[in-house]
């Protein structure tokens, strides 16, 4: 079969699946949700899966990922799993409220939706759709590219569950909320997560979003996250990705910011077969700050694609992008940063930076930082670098008695640290720091789990000493 045909095969399969099941599966939903699904599947039918002939997908070929056979379930498959063991979290001094998802569905156990003492609502999207229809009518599917993004339309058609958070006006959520999404099944899975996060005016939230796989089974996760940050609210968002080499993750995040708000997202990609992070930020009010950071450490034939689109609509906002990556063996990467400064967005400050280290001749990165500016009083800058480890620095370290292997590690770690140091929660930073070191030493397997199952005894790290702990 040709590339095109393979894509069409899965496309048709999914459309048929939708038609066959829509009356039985989605029947008890509010009417407008059903309408959205029907519009979305129609749109998906028109768009189809992206191909490398399309501008945004030129360097990310989905053919192989789309040509596998996947199972698509409409209800959770949580048999034979010790949920408590699976979702055990062991970051010391980092107390979080964990919301667990297994194979795309909220893990049964505690109440599906809880209202915390401060009024914050956290839990399953499936439940929230029924319980809070007025919130959904105001926010759900309102800031996604519902008319041109094939993965969003597909997700809107199928999505049943995901994370729902509503932080009321003025509430500062003290404990971080941690979404742990684990894939663990003995067949190939096609999963479609949908998350809706709303931060009311003057509120504050730290959200940690972990994507993990337990075994080596293939999976395709088409995840969509919508985040609304109302006036003067503050969001700190971390994405940790540690998936197996046969997994595909399309992670589309849409952030909508109102005046005076701050939103910071940090994607830490440690492992994965093919990962595409699409981050869209709309700065739709004055005095907004957006920080979009990422670090990626890839090897084998892994592929990472970070696409960032920042839309400066209003004046006096700032955005800052920093992505750093190390690619080893035959790994490939893409960075595409697009900042749009609209005519009205005077006094915009926007900076983009993408820096890469290629450790082999066969690793590659396509990087394209891009500014599109229509306002005349702005401060913008962009840059990208691709290089090898600094040979002068290597010799300097070795001349002090440090082995070549450790010198390389020190330099790689130092390179990644610039992004890691932007993690503002110290226990989380230390944990991620440790995972990055393990990853660079080749000791991080998917059994290490993102932030979980850190039961493996910490090895003596020769090059590490934290002065604050002494």
């Amino acid at each position, binding site marked *: 079969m040709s590339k095109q045909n393979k894509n069409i095969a899965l496309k048709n399969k999914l459309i048929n699946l939708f038609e066959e099941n829509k009356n039985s599966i989605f029947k008890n939903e509010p009417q407008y949700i059903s309408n959205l699904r029907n519009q979305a599947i129609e749109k998906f039918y028109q768009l189809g899966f992206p191909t490398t002939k399309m501008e945004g997908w030129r360097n990310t070929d989905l053919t192989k990922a789309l040509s596998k056979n996947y199972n698509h379930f409409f209800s959770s498959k949580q048999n034979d799993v010790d949920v408590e063991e699976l979702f055990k979290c062991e970051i010391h001094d980092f107390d979080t409220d964990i919301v667990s998802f297994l194979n795309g569905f909220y893990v049964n156990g505690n109440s599906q939706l809880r209202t915390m003492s401060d009024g914050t609502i956290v839990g399953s999207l499936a439940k929230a759709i029924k319980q809070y229809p007025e919130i959904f009518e105001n926010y759900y599917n309102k800031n996604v590219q519902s008319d041109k993004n094939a993965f969003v339309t597909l997700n809107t058609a199928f999505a049943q569950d995901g994370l729902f958070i509503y932080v009321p006006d003025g509430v500062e959520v003290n404990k971080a909320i941690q979404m742990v999404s684990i894939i663990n099944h003995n067949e190939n899975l096609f999963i479609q997560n949908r998350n809706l996060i709303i931060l009311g005016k003057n509120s504050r939230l730290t959200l940690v979003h972990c994507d993990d796989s337990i075994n080596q089974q293939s999976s395709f996760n088409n995840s969509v996250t919508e985040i609304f940050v109302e006036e003067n609210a503050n969001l700190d968002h971390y994405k940790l990705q540690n998936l197996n080499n046969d997994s595909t993750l399309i992670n589309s995040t849409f952030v909508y910011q109102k005046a005076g708000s701050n939103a910071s997202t940090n994607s830490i990609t440690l492992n994965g077969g093919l990962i595409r992070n699409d981050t869209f930020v709309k700065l739709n009010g004055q005095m907004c700050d957006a920080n979009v950071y990422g670090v990626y450490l890839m090897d084998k034939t892994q592929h990472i694609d970070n696409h960032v689109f920042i839309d400066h609509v209003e004046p006096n906002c700032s955005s800052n992008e920093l992505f750093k990556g190390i690619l080893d063996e035959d790994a490939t990467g893409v960075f595409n940063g697009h900042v749009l400064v609209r005519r009205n967005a005077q006094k915009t400050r926007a900076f983009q930076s993408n820096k890469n280290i290629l450790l082999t001749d066969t690793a590659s990165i396509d990087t394209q930082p891009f500014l599109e500016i229509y306002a005349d009083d702005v401060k913008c800058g962009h840059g990208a670098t691709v290089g090898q480890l600094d040979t002068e620095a290597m*010799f*300097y370290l070795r*001349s002090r*008695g*440090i*082995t070549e292997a450790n010198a390389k590690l020190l330099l790689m770690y130092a390179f990644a640290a610039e992004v890691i140091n932007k993690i503002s929660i110290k226990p989380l930073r230390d944990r991620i720091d440790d995972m990055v070191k393990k990853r660079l030493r080749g000791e991080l397997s998917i059994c290490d789990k993102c932030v979980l199952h850190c039961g493996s005894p910490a090895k003596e790290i020769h*090059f590490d*000493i934290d002065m604050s702990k*002494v």
Partner: protein
Amino acid sequence: MLLNIRNLHVSIEGKEIVKGLDLSVNNGEVHAIMGPNGTGKSTLALAIAGKGEYTITQGEIIYKGKNINNMPPEDRAREGIFLGFQYPVEIPGVSITNFMRTAINEHREYKGLPPISAPEFLAKMEDKKKLVEIQSKLTNRSVNEGFSGGEKKKNEIFQMAMLEPTLSILDETDSGLDIDALRVVANGVNKLRTKENAFVIITHYQRLLEYIVPDFVHVLYDGRIVKSGGKRLAVELEEKGYDWIKKEFEMN
């Protein structure tokens, strides 16, 4: 004999820079190497330290009785060779503390010793920082990043003090230093002198040699040592320049 270099030829990218150099250094000695620019002083230093691009095409470097021509730089360091760089490299993201702790532990592992304990390491840091009058905050910064010329050179001496080498080669450690920094650096070196360890000091100026008094002075010209003498030779060079040496060399 600690270091015995015989008929050394070193090329970089096919171009011969060191052309048949002989040098012997015994434990406890201080040797100064002087000479005009571009005559191979830094090449000699980097070849002894084991930099990859510096190919030894002829001759040998014997250190502690062993030929080290093909020894990797980290092993040379762990055998006690230290190079104070003319241009110390900036390494963003690596703190001096991490850097030194790693280096010391690698040295210890090589000798079959367990890693240094945190309190012992910190005490050593404090001790050696005083030696070169480094303010405490410097050690939490990235290696050489944003350091002034003087700070970089002090940091080289600090590293030398931490690693306690047997043979230290200081490549123009005095260049770019004001008189106060020069005195600090020289005092540091003098305090580290013992009967066991030796120094090879590469310099353009006699000034440093007023503080660190050498046992021998050598003049390097056109890739060879063309004249050797006692400390008075340095004074003579300062007064008369190198022209007479060049003439002498060309006549021979």
